[in-house]
């Protein structure tokens, strides 16, 4: 995964609370291989019931939405659908915990703004798109002419900027893991599944 530090693009508002991962990608699409792209599955049922849906009219890089975005199922496919659609950053007051980790593991920024800031942005954007600029290093954004400072866990910020991959990062600790394993299983033999 390659890192990034800035986005220049367009933003739209998705005016909804609790957009869960079942809505982001309905379960029936999850047996599809990734290489064909998941972008078409993003909010599939919501979009096909509403021809005028904002994501049927625009192809934004930045999504502004309400609290508890990405709650529910741990399906990383919800992030694949957003990323393959072209979304690089989602701004909301809060996110599902597992969704946030999955997002960062795929280069997607889950950035937090206050509810008041989100209210104002959704009001400004309405059903249209607007210019968006995100500076990940500075933790700043300018969306529809409004300058904002957003919150992001500093660990995730570094991970996104550098495109760090956890498996590569963990490789350097292989010796410590082996040592830990030995000690744990020696001290607590019950932690090993019994096999007859």
């Amino acid at each position, binding site marked *: 995964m390659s890192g990034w530090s800035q986005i220049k693009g367009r933003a739209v508002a998705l005016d909804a609370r609790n957009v869960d991962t079942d809505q982001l990608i309905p379960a029936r699409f999850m047996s599809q291989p990734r290489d064909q792209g998941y972008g078409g599955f993003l909010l599939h049922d919501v979009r096909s019931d509403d021809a005028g849906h904002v994501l049927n009219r625009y192809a934004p890089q930045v999504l502004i939405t309400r609290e508890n975005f990405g709650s529910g199922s741990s399906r990383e496919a919800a992030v694949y659908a957003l990323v393959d659609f072209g979304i690089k950053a989602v701004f909301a007051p809060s996110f599902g915990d*597992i969704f946030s980790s999955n997002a960062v593991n795929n280069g997607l920024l889950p950035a937090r703004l206050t509810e008041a800031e989100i209210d104002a942005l959704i009001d400004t954007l309405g059903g249209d798109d607007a210019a968006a600029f995100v500076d990940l290093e500075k933790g700043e954004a300018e969306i529809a002419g409004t300058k904002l400072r957003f919150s992001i866990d500093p660990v995730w910020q570094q991970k996104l900027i550098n495109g760090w991959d956890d498996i590569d990062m*963990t490789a350097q600790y292989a010796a410590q893991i082996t040592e830990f394993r030995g000690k744990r299983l020696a001290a607590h033999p019950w*932690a090993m599944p019994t096999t007859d």
Partner: protein
Amino acid sequence: MSAPLTTVHDVPRIGLHDVPRTMLDKLWDAHEVLRRDDGTSLLWVDRHLVHEGSHHGFAKLQARGMQVAEPSLTFGVVDHYAPTRAGEMARDVRHMIDTLVRNAAATGIRLFDLRDPGQGIVHVIGPEQGLTLPGLLINCGDSHTSTHGAFGALAFGVGATEVAHILATQTVWQKRPKTMRIVFDGALSPGVTAKDMALHWISRLGTGGAQGFAVEYAGPAVDALSMEGRMTLCNLSIEGGARLGMVAPDEVTFAYVKGRPFAPRDFAVACADWRALGSDAEAVFDREVTFNAAQIAPTVTWGTSPEEALPITGVVPEAAQSTLEYMGLDAGMPLETVKVDQVFIGSCTNGRIEDLRMAAAVLRGRKARVPGLVSPGSAIVKKQAEDEGLAQVFVDAGLEWADAGCSMCVGMNGDLVEAGKRCASSTNRNFKGRQGRGARTHLMSPAMVAAAAVEGRLADVRPLLEGRL
């Protein structure tokens, strides 16, 4: 590429602590291989459970040419796409199952496939097989992994990238969550269950109420729950935003675990360790919330989020028009007048033997007014329910008795609710489209689902249980 911060903190071990610790602290410390300067911990994973949906994780591993680090700590099961009824398997269902079978065979993982007598939903069979134990760290690519916390385990759901990482290293990177204790004082009334406790707290605190927290459930009403009840309570933690839910292990826990196929043979030694896991009396939680169990009524959801739940005696509240429209309800309608088209009993939330016994207690000698499906949580639960005569009760009532799997909770195997149809369901999510496109889901306990089946509408189970408990 270089790692961010290479200094590693000395990680204190159990026995060196003066400060009172919560159960989360104890479990975390016992699994922390190292902690980076930025506060992120590398945790040892004792059990990694995989299912058909883990195919992205295996693909990532294969793309890097890596092996599964600890096949003997990794267990697979067919559940999400498992067919529960006779007939031709759809091509994509067959493909998903075959992919897991192939991945398991290639990596040397013990797989509970469709023919295995131990097959079932991952969060039912882990405990049933004795793979789930107090004191373990358990991961699975499924958000309801918090179920296993009922044993005093550190158990949480992960995404596909994390699945690949665990397969490759048997470890997971995590930041320690904040701690929250949810206390249930008093005792539950007859006909009120762990499901009602969960829906109750989620309706009060909201679906984001426990975001960023690990929840420990405590208090007399939690102590009084069976392991099945504790699993239901912990299972639904994620619906309140918490990635982890847990209950301190006690004699109820040990009695459940003892003698299970993969449980430790030197049981006394294990129990001695497990007895030390509970939070210290003086331990401080970041947040503490108390509910009175005696005041909890049988609870049902009316909307499209688990927080949209009320006592069955309530009325549909004023709400977003889009929600009421989707659900086909009007504000002000008494919940007990809402007619249902079908029912479903099963899932990792409420597909265990105790759940089936409660539902059967309501249905015995009665007829369901609407069709419904009962899918036991595992092949072992199925066998037990048949031996106890519960299956016959469901069949006599007019419900369909099926095989074990995730079934109509998520619909991946084709067990779906049709658009516009209303289903009383013992599952965990009433999200739009969860049980099928346009499906209207009402979450409730298995006993309440049985009551809905008997009445053909949302109904209070308490009168139907009189003289039967």
